[in-house]
């Protein structure tokens, strides 16, 4: 075997979920005390345990809701299908919520996992180069301005129950089948305020405006989200929402040119 073949063989042995490969002893040395299969088993166990630990550290509340045994079963199946694609290990969970959806996990668990993933992304996001201040607004050009948001800001739509589950960190034995009145999904913003990650459930009009702004629409277009037909009310509401974005330090810059 050449180097590439040896590495492929090692990787298959170390990541296989179906036990030792044939011919291990022809490729690796063993001893009476520890066979080649036993030795590769150390790497195989380490591979799965390490990735499962990484999932557990990111999705701790999802794990609490699912229970340890179910989380381990789903986590191991997930990492077998979705090996890490990022040099930082915690990023292995990039598709975990989608995976949970694909295996018909309870929808609120899918949403909780998506929320925890968004919180990780907010936690590790690069710092903004700048925080836009209200006094940087150019009143005459403001309607044509486009907003650039800080990189920690994450937006997702989810079952509000997922927010409750996240907040209920001490509660165990959660009955995912418990009856409750169905609530419509809500827009949630997740961001980092200095070192802490925060989240906020947004009203429908603010959620709509935020999506328009993130898509780099001009502010005049963004403010159509507040259009109720009453100019006074609309302006007051738009002012209130935009003030909130400034106050939460969500804005990296106010851009007056398309570039």
């Amino acid at each position, binding site marked *: 075997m050449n180097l590439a073949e*040896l590495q492929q063989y090692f990787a298959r042995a170390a990541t296989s979920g179906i036990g030792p490969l044939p011919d291990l002893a*022809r490729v690796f*040395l063993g001893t009476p005390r520890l066979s080649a299969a036993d030795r590769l088993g150390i790497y195989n166990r380490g591979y799965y345990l390490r*990735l499962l630990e990484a999932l557990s550290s990111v999705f701790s509340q999802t794990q609490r809701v699912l229970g340890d045994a179910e989380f381990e079963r789903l986590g191991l199946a997930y990492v077998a299908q979705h090996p890490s694609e990022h040099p930082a290990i915690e990023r292995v969970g990039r598709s975990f919520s989608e995976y949970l959806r694909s295996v018909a996990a309870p929808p609120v668990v899918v949403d909780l996992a998506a929320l925890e993933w968004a919180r990780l992304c907010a936690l590790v996001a690069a710092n903004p180069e700048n925080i836009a201040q209200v006094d940087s607004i150019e009143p005459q050009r403001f309607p044509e301005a486009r907003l650039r948001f800080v990189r920690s800001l994450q937006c997702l739509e989810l079952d509000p129950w997922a927010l409750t589950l996240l907040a209920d960190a001490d509660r165990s034995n959660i009955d995912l089948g418990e009856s409750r009145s169905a609530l419509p999904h809500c827009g949630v913003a997740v961001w980092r305020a200095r070192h802490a990650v925060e989240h906020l459930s947004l009203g429908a009009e603010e959620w709509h405006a935020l999506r328009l702004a993130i898509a780099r629409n001009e502010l005049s277009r963004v403010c159509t989200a507040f259009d109720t037909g009453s100019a006074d009310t609309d302006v007051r509401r738009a002012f209130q929402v935009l003030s909130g974005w400034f106050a939460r330090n969500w804005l990296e810059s106010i851009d007056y040119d398309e570039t």
Partner: protein
Amino acid sequence: MHRTADPQQTLSGPARTQPGALACVGFGLRVPHYDAILTHGLRADFAEAISENFMGRGGRAFDVLERVRADVPIALHGVSLSIGGMDLLSESYLSELAELARRIAAFSVSDHLCFGTFGGHYAHDLWPLPYTEEALAHVVSRVQQVQDRLGRRLLLENVSSYVEYRASVLTEWEFVSEVATRADAGLLLDLNNVFVSAANHGFSAETYLRALPPARVQQIHLAGHSDTGSYLFDDHGSAVPDAIWRLYEQSLELFGAVPTIVEWDERLPELSALEAEATHARQLSNAQLGVQRRHAP
């Protein structure tokens, strides 16, 4: 382009403690210690940061690094470069690493002499290489690429291992020495890894140390391991054991008082426990420096 340089120097400055100077001992930054570090600072001569925990990141990790950097130099230590892997070296990874090293004026940049990628995926493990001529040429070429990209010498750490390839034609110490010499790289000598591999494969740790080119050894790692009964496991989960301290004393005689890091990952104790380990390493290192001074011309 392949740079050649005085092995006593990194391309960005001196890496070895010079005779007459004080010992240089530190420990690795770990998340559970961040609050203590942000509050009290770090009592060490330098600190080691896992590169991937800080590359492209902001928030608390960024602030911790800035706080530590204000007090002591920082050595960057990577785990995902996969210098021996067959996948192409990641340009985005190298770009982020170069930017981080520049931003914090890193004291040194190191990673492991192993492979950890397969088919575009990351193993997040330090898989051993076969010690063949083909692997040697492959690794040397990639180390040179990385050094050219970073504009500085790379330090390579020997890994602990649990298995050997039948295809190997060199001993581990021959392979490590040849890579460092041919690629003009430095060595980060992990004494716990030498000890663990020596026990698992039945070779002499002392033979390993004596075979290394002394001028290439530019940093040392100290750590603990566990004994499973069938093999030694490199878990960094306990104090540095006496056997590793003895190897450290031998290494100080062979390589001089090189900068030394105490590592601890599993069952992490209070910061004060790491400071106590570092203090002991500093005492041994300073004693060696006293010997060096007495023998200086």
